[in-house]
């Protein structure tokens, strides 16, 4: 079960956070920011206090109820995946998140790099991916709760896909007549 996904930019700022199930306590958005900053700092220190040379920063944090997996890209962005301790194929999920991130935020002309992520398609595809993994856990119908970024998503889902054109245009979509090609 995937609980949450956080994305931390290279300066330690939280640019994305979303909860997908109720495994964790709810925090205020300010607390999430602090949390991201803390993790960022700890990540840097943990590579310094290694008893063996050349260690990376913290990769996995284990607790009795959940695990935080951290994947840092070569560019310094950190993807944090909070999941239950039994969650399989963690590496694959993290890679997938990175893939979705580089598709729908990096290539989006309206998304400023290093800034909080506001890309509808990113939300949609991430949710789809999480659902596909969480769906494997049978009969766990925990509702997807609405995180701080979820406003976009909620409105998107509730919106029925009614064909509607711009006001300047007559309603041609539904009245169009096929030409039989």
């Amino acid at each position, binding site marked *: 079960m995937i609980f949450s996904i956080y994305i931390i930019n290279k300066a330690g700022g939280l640019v994305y956070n979303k909860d997908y199930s109720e495994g*964790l*306590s709810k*925090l205020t958005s300010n*607390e999430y920011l602090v*949390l991201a900053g*803390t*993790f960022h*700092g*700890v990540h840097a*220190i*943990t*590579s*310094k*206090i*290694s*008893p*063996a*040379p*050349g*260690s*990376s*920063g*913290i*990769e*996995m*944090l*284990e*607790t*009795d*109820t*959940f695990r935080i997996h951290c994947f840092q890209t070569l560019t310094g962005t950190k993807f944090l995946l*909070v999941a239950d301790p039994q969650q399989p194929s963690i590496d694959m999920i993290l890679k997938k998140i990175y893939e979705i991130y580089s598709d729908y935020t990096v290539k989006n002309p309206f998304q400023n790099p290093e800034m909080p992520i506001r890309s509808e398609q990113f939300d949609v595809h991430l949710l789809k991916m999480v659902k596909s993994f969480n769906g494997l856990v049978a009969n766990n119908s925990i509702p997807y709760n609405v995180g701080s970024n979820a406003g976009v998503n909620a409105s998107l889902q509730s919106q029925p896909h009614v064909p509607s054109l711009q006001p300047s245009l007559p309603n041609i979509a539904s009245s169009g007549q096929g030409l039989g090609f």
Partner: protein
Amino acid sequence: MIYNMYIFDRHCQCIYYHDWHRGHTAKTAFDTHGDPLASHPSGGGGGGSTTTTTTMTDPRQGMNMSLEEEGKLVYGVVYSLRNLVKKLGKSQDGFIAYRTSHYKLHYYETLTGLKFVINSDPNVESLQQALRQIYTQIYVELVVKNPLACATITNGQVNPETMGAEGFRNGVDRFVRSLTMFDT
């Protein structure tokens, strides 16, 4: 493979340090004014070769921080992570361990606020139980019950001599060496 171990008291002081496999990366131990705890070469059984002995002239000067500094950083990390976990999780004291590419840090906190930290290689299973045993079977037996070993702080000063009683150090050394993952 077990690398090293720290014990912190309630007052953020590193009251015990012991290392086993740190050969290549041996950092400078305490300087003369530092906590002399760590400067006790392990008198334990087994090969004394793996334990680092303190040298006043550090061959790797400037490359590493002192052990005292390192102790503070380790404390800072476990303290931050413990709070982070407390905040995020619904249970108390959920923090068990964290792993990087090269080591795994195991954590155990007693109800009295004593923090046991041990570093191993990343593939080791949880050592929390082992830390618990060190607490109940060695610390309690050899420090708490030892009237000569004053484990607490008097006047804000650690008196490590007493805490570092050979008995405790030997006990920990023997115990850790007996763990199956000690050398592998």
